[in-house]
């Protein structure tokens, strides 16, 4: 059973217009923001498939930038994310591809982002109803679910800790 809570049905509270093309994408951006512990100075974004086809109408790029700027999915500023990215010095490029070579789903995005010395490449998929998943992180395939009830900073922090621990252990 994919839906587990009353709040999976009544919710999330989010900026429109689409739970999969907008809300779920904010979470993917937020994960990267949390991973870098701040907004990136540069982000190279590739939208695939349905995201590439319909991103303008759904504000998908605003949603992703909003997340990269640390906004949550109910933040009205998501609507102005393009202007705010400019003000905050977040430089980005957008590219469009037909299908994602790493993950078979119409709603996929790959972001390479840099903040100071930190660089991250993350693949995200928006699964519907605001539920997202990071499927690729720095070249590794992963399954990090981003639920609307999750605190994404905790999810990212947990994953960072696991990775640091693994690196210390020489795995």
């Amino acid at each position, binding site marked *: 059973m994919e839906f587990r809570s009353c709040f999976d049905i*009544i919710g999330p509270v989010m900026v429109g*217009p689409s739970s999969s093309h907008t*809300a779920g994408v904010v979470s993917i951006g937020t994960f990267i923001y949390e991973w870098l512990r701040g907004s990136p100075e540069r982000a190279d974004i590739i939208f695939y498939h349905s995201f590439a086809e319909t991103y303008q109408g*759904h504000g998908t790029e605003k949603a992703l930038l909003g997340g990269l700027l640390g906004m949550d999915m109910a933040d009205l500023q998501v609507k102005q994310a393009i202007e705010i990215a400019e003000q905050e010095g977040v430089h*980005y490029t957008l590219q469009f591809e037909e299908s994602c070579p790493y993950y078979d789903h119409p709603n996929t995005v790959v972001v390479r982002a840099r903040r100071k010395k930190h660089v991250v490449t993350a693949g995200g998929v928006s699964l*519907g109803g605001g539920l997202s998943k990071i499927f690729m992180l720095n070249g590794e395939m992963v399954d990090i679910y981003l639920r609307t009830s999750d605190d994404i900073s905790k999810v990212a922090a947990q994953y960072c800790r696991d990775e640091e621990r693994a690196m210390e252990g020489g795995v």
Partner: protein
Amino acid sequence: MELSSMNELIEVCTKEKKNIGEVMLKMEEENSAKDKDTIVQLMEKRLKQMEETIRRGQTSTDLASSGISGGDTRKMNNYLKHQQPLSGDYISDAMTFALATSESNAQMGVIVATPTAGAAGVLPGVLFSLQRHAGTSYKDLVMGLFTASALGYVIANRAFVSGAAGGCQAEIGSATAIAAGTIVELKGGTPEQAVHAAAIAMKSLLGLVCDPVAGLVEVPCIKRNVIGTSIAFSSADLALAGIESRIPCDEVIQAMYNIGKDMPSALRETALGGLAATDTGKQVKERLFGQKSSCRVNNKPRDM
């Protein structure tokens, strides 16, 4: 506890002498680590957001950035001010509230997905119309959201709730079904009657395709939210009169699922068929997205 069917939901209600909303609340307590007060507060927050979205949408004259939706709530309000609506107070206000919510959604306003953003207008529309005309208290409306989520939970887990997955019948169909059942429970009907109302509403929308113009959640999505409220009220009236769905609700949901699976992909949110493929639909798409480039950076002029 898990609710895997409408039949099971009715059985649990009967056994525990609770209504649908109370059963959902209890299940949430058991399945989450949260206590009852916290859960109720979280739900109340969602109800408040719905009310706020309606309030803002009532006065808005904005168009969506596409230019193909917006401003209709104001027209509806003007009409209601000067004329007696044919569809009566309950439905005409529910339509107006749904319109306000779905127009806000198209403008990237804050909404509550119920169960999706594309179908966010139906449930708030009927709830706040009940508050105005049936005097339903705020506390009862919050419980109504638990009723709605129980019905939606069963539908979402047995079938689907998004247009991309199962067509509009899955999206507006589910939203309308849960709104119908919620009206029945808030008006004092039994869990059986609420489930019949959900079945009747869903049957009325079976086969409806998802064919949004230019892929935007605007045309015909906004008006389908609006009309969903009237189907919800009609279905609720039938069920409250004691009329039953001849096909049990679980089987109606199964039929919705099967139809959705059989639906060609052109009619599932891809904007390649139905209204999206009409001359006007294609012109809108060309106007908005005709000059799509393969790459963009943020310092270049924008064409939106």
